């Protein structure tokens, strides 16, 4: 398996605080990996460092064979066309319709004629599991789940090799969240995508991801399949996963 993303020895200092102190992990092609950790442990910050939005103080990030922070601005932009990003709130352009949002990267980065572009836009909207009518709506008219799907369609526009997702299921009801997880699984398997996501959603961990990387106190304290990570003897991990057991009713039978 080829390595798609390699994070090595990342040091991040934000507002005088040491956020990451030697964070490192690897993601192989086709894997879906979740980054978990308490609030403020720098999951989103790490994601932003991987996609070239925030420079770490030290360390190296190799993404799709390129050293992200050693690239020239032009090369970085070229690299950015090879991965898609789903921001937490979707970050759809509110003045454009869904179709125009998906079209934006195609218009900027491909020389496709308009008719062909429209076909690609229709395909991406369908791939993201949106009804084709949604194309003509503006982001303000969409529900939370549909907004995420529209943002996913835009992230998929340029046939990326890798997806970064910041809390893809936050703000969704459990049913929509599971549907979104299933969609991600289908897309990653069928389109051969690799994905790195941050999440607080335990159901996503158990249901969707291949591997979990746990950030705590600026370091990676566990890295492996979820059933292995859940057994790691560490205070934070234990309380994190025991909360899940209770929620599921396995512990004290709250839900029977």
């Amino acid at each position, binding site marked *: 398996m080829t390595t798609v993303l390699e994070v090595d020895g990342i040091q991040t200092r934000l507002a005088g605080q040491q956020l990451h102190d030697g964070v490192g992990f690897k993601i192989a092609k086709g894997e879906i990996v979740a980054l978990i950790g308490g609030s403020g442990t720098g999951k989103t910050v790490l994601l932003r460092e991987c996609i070239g939005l925030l420079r770490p103080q030290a360390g190296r990030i190799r993404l799709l064979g390129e050293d992200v922070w050693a690239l020239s601005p032009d090369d970085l932009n070229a690299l950015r066309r090879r991965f898609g990003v789903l921001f937490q709130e979707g970050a759809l352009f*509110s*003045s454009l319709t869904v179709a125009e949002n998906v079209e934006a990267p195609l218009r900027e980065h*491909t*020389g*496709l*004629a308009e008719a*062909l572009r429209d*076909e*690609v836009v*229709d*395909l*991406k909207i*369908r*791939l993201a599991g949106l*009804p*084709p*009518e949604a*194309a*003509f709506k*503006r*982001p*303000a008219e969409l529900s939370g789940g549909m907004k995420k799907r529209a943002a996913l369609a835009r992230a*998929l526009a*340029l*046939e990326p090799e890798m997806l970064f997702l910041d809390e893809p299921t936050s703000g969704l009801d459990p049913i929509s969240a599971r549907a979104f997880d299933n969609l991600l699984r*289908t*897309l990653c*398997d*069928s*389109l*051969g995508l690799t994905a790195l996501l941050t999440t607080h959603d335990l159901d996503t961990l158990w249901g969707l991801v291949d591997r979990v990387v746990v950030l705590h106190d600026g370091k990676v304290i566990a890295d492996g399949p979820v059933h292995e990570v859940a057994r790691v003897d560490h205070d934070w991990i234990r309380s994190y996963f025991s909360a899940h057991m209770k929620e599921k009713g396995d512990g004290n039978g709250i839900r029977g």
Partner: protein
Amino acid sequence: MTDAGPFVLERTATGWLLRLLGDWRMVNLAALDHALAGHAWPEDGHLSLDGSALTGLDSAGLMLIHNRLKSAGIAWPAIELAGFDNERLALIRLVADRLDAPAPAVVVPPGFVAALGHRVSRAAAEVPGLLTLLGQISEGVVDLVRRPSGFRMREFFVQLQAVGLGALPIVAMMTFLIGVVFAYLLGIQIEKYGANIFIVDGVSLAIARELSPMLVAILVAGRSGAAFTAQIGAMKVTEEIDAIATLGLSPVKVLVLPRLLAIVVAMPLLAFFGDLVGVLGAATVAASQLDITFNTFFIRMRDVLPFSTVTFGLSKTPAFAVAIAFIACRNGFAVSRDARSVGERTTATVVTSLMAVILINAFYAIVHPEL
């Protein structure tokens, strides 16, 4: 069959075989589309698709072959697949499955009459909101008279400072320069008749009656009206307005009344300040170009500028102020929850309130024509 195109169509014993060659990915999409466009497809439909010679395939490339074959009357389920590995088969299943869902109803762009009707009905839909705000403001004012202690004094003074004090420098600059320009132009004409002293009559009347109130109104509409809409609109976007209402407070009393009163108080003061500075600008030109000393200028002004003209000019400004504040606040509340709407509504505030100011001014001029 000798060209190195992206596909080869062959006749076989059982039907047709379409062999895809090379790289069928997004990067080559335009070229692939071009190659497919000029091709004739078999009529009888039985087609096998062979992907063993593909070097690359992604969803866009697959969509292209799917859509082109479909429009040629070859439905996807009738196509046999050969030479694809499991990964590509998964991709094919997904894309074909999604693309075979019914197409969206095409939105026909409305004709002229429909578009006109749409605009009119949208304009009409504004009326209830306008009336509601008018009612709420009236209720708030009545309430204020009955129970003055409920007034948000702090917010009022914050707004008064922003609308009034903050506007002084730009009001001074604008009215001074308009006074200069107006006196200069008038002076050139008057000088021909040797009637230099009449510059005082023309300039002081024009500034006190029309120029200063109008300039101040335009300035306040652009400066404070836009600010009101943007402030209230941004609060609407972040649900702060809803939070105010949930706390049992009235957004109109908290946000609108202090702004309305601040602008009503500030505008006559600004206009009077504009009168002074504008006349000063004119007097400067008169002194330097027309040999009329400051002393002569102001003695003449005392004789020809009746106090009633000054008060008439100032009396217009509260009406301007009410119109600007009302339009600005209404547009602020009408912002919907997206970034674009704030910009649209702010523009609408400035344009509408300028129109309102000019209409009100014309109304005053007709009702009170004598100087």
